[in-house]
């Protein structure tokens, strides 16, 4: 059964080969050929992923317990360390297969889109090489058979993200942003690694196969350390998934090319943290249900914070970035609000009723990837058209770019949670799980959902309606993008339109059993959230649709500080700046640097000085006078003679 999936190694190998080929020989190829190589290999990966999903869900189907079994078609020991060993392999289970679909779809679309967007850019081949590297790493991350392999690919993903954010390496902000992204996520990954090592030490395994025949493995002596290990891993995930307070890198990462933002910083890499928590989920539920509350509240606060900031930003990519943070936080909340069975302290698998959040989180991950990628790609089209990220350079764009307008509108409706678009279904599941957890959480999340609708439509009206910047438009002639860019938009929008009707609960649920959520669907809650979203949209329409926006100006004047604080992202970057520069650099690093320069360097300088002085002293021997040499030679000969006769 597992041998039939042996070909899945190709899903990793193809993008890796294309990365190597483009990276090594790309500069000899023309732009067109390089792009075609990258896109073709990704197209093959896309088809293989679809085939895998089809075979996995329909070809093999459920086993006797009624769940989809996890398959390991390929696994090899890479580094044995006594009892422990680091493995490399491929694991197929429902969430991994679902992620394969998400990643390959978005990545394939982004490859196509980049043909138009990056047309004629310097380093086009390099761009495609990095995209391939990223796709390979991300696919490797989701099919990892153990936490250590996941960590390796996790870091590879971080590197390729760094390379792609800094793609325009001649521009200062891009360099700063790439460094910031790398350092912040790397800082978080340190905790991840510590968590992995604690886990490996106590559990004596790195493997993900902790679910055996319907119940979670026993960790007799390790149970008391698992909450710590899992929480440290969560910090790593929070770094990648931009949870407060480690979110600061994501808005800056928008300096990268827009398709990259769509792929990495909206759809795939930033959900790695969510995926990681979902991957370890049986352990969370069985051993650390209390720690899960922290995950939920961190997620909720992040969602609120990001939504508040998004309401005040003027750079369209920044708005989308904060919206991404907010939506990922929704997924985290959904995972965090899952609860163990009320009666059981026993490490039984969670029931799907209580684990609805798990399903909701994965569902939202899927739908969000599609509509957020659409939004970013639309933003790319707009930026392509007006050569600016600022909303002030746009306005009234609906006349110039009809396709972009409609796809953007649909994606906005989806993210706002309006039926029948996909966002409605997934968000509603999250709200339902939140209400089941506690009414407070439920209302908080509903409020944030309303804010989401508000700022998304503020963005929408600011771009496509509102005051038109006629001077700027006369200058740069905005026009609809070429087919290479509009096709991905249409394709992803089509998915957004239908994705809500995928019976997701039948594919993924906390205990693996089929779960028909439509039968359990809370229609009252759905109507309520839909109604609130509509009110928000109406509010945004009222404030931002017109040519003049008296209400917006009045609001801004009424609470100038609040607006300013939100616009400056509540000065969090400044706080970080203060802590790192004024405290850590000034007092700790500077002291260490001084010690290094004075004593460590000093010691070696002393050695060098001593050698130099000694050489200076004895260089008189090398006078070049043959008689002096002879003198020393005879002296030596006499000494030898003395040694011999005595």
């Amino acid at each position: 059964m597992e041998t039939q999936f042996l070909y899945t190694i190709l899903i990793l190998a193809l993008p890796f080969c294309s990365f190597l080929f483009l990276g090594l020989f790309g500069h000899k190829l023309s732009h067109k050929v390089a792009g075609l190589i990258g896109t073709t290999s990704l197209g093959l990966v896309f088809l293989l992923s679809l085939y895998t999903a089809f075979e996995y869900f329909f070809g093999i189907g459920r086993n006797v317990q009624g769940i989809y079994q996890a398959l390991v078609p390929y696994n090899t020991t890479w580094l044995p360390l006594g009892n422990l060993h680091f493995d490399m392999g491929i694991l197929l289970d429902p969430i991994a297969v679902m992620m394969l679909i998400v990643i390959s779809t978005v990545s394939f679309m982004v490859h196509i889109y980049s043909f138009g967007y990056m047309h004629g850019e310097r380093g086009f081949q390099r761009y495609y090489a990095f995209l391939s590297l990223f796709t390979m790493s991300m696919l490797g991350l989701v099919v990892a058979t153990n936490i250590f392999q996941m960590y390796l690919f996790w870091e590879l993903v971080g590197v390729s993200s760094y390379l792609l954010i800094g793609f325009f390496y001649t521009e200062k902000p891009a360099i700063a942003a790439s460094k910031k992204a790398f350092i912040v996520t790397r800082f978080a990954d340190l905790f991840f690694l510590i968590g992995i090592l604690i886990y490996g030490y106590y559990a004596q395994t790195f493997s993900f196969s902790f679910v055996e025949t319907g119940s979670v493995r026993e960790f007799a002596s390790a149970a008391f350390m698992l909450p710590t290990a899992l929480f440290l891993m969560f910090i790593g995930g929070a770094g990648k998934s931009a949870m407060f307070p480690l979110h600061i890198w994501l808005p800056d990462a928008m300096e990268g090319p827009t398709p990259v933002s769509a792929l990495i910083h909206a759809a795939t890499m930033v959900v790695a943290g969510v995926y990681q928590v979902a991957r370890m989920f049986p352990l969370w539920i069985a051993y650390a249900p209390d720690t899960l509350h922290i995950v939920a509240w961190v997620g909720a606060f992040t969602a609120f914070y990001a939504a508040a900031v998004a309401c005040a930003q003027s750079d369209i990519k920044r708005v989308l970035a904060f919206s991404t943070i907010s939506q990922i936080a929704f997924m985290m909340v959904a995972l965090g609000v899952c609860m163990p069975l009320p009666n059981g302290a026993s490490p039984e698998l969670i029931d799907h009723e209580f684990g609805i959040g798990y399903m909701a989180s994965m569902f939202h991950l899927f739908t969000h990837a599609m509509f957020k990628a659409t939004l970013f790609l639309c933003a790319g089209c707009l930026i392509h058209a007006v050569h600016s990220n600022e909303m002030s350079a746009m306005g009234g764009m609906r006349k110039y770019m009809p396709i972009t307008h409609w796809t953007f509108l649909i994606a906005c409706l989806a993210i706002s949670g309006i039926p029948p678009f996909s966002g409605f279904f997934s968000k509603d599941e999250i709200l339902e799980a939140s209400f089941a957890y506690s009414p407070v959480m439920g209302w908080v999340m509903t409020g944030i959902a309303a804010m989401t609708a508000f700022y998304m439509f503020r963005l929408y009206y600011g771009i496509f309606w509102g005051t038109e910047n006629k001077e700027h438009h006369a200058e740069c002639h905005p026009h609809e993008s070429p087919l290479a860019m509009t096709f991905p938009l249409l394709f992803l929008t089509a998915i957004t339109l239908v994705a809500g009707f995928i019976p997701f609960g039948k594919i993924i649920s906390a205990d693996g059993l089929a779960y028909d959520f439509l039968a359990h669907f809370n229609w009252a809650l759905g109507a309520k959230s839909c109604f609130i979203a509509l009110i928000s949209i109406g509010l945004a329409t009222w404030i931002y649709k017109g040519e003049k926006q008296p209400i917006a100006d009045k609001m801004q004047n009424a609470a100038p500080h609040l607006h300013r604080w939100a616009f400056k992202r509540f000065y969090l970057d400044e706080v970080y700046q203060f802590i790192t520069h004024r405290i850590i650099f000034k007092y700790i690093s500077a002291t260490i640097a001084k010690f290094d320069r004075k004593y460590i360097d000093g010691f070696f300088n002393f050695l060098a000085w001593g050698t130099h002085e000694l050489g200076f002293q004895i260089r008189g021997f090398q006078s070049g006078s043959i008689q002096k040499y002879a003198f020393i030679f005879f002296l030596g000969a006499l000494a030898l003679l003395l040694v011999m006769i005595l």
Partner: protein
Amino acid sequence: MIELNYILIVSAIMMFAGIFGFLTRRSTLAILLSIELMLNSADINFAVFNRMLYGQSGNTEGFFFTLFSIAITAAESAIAIAIMVNIYRLIKDTSVDKLTKMKW
């Protein structure tokens, strides 16, 4: 009675006279003369030790060593003198402290 090894004393005096000359002379030709002295004293030692060890027994290793050494010395001094003459032709001087052209 004079013993054979007294000749060694004579050769030692000759050797150290040569060394002294080698260390103090400035003219390269005079240095070569000192080298001849040293070589000669070594030759004497070969002959003396041969006589001392083998007497009349017919073993003549030291004898022949001296013989070939003389031949080689002749060759060596011929080359050395040719070089000196050439150097003198070039820089009109044979002082050992002036011959620095080839050092660097």
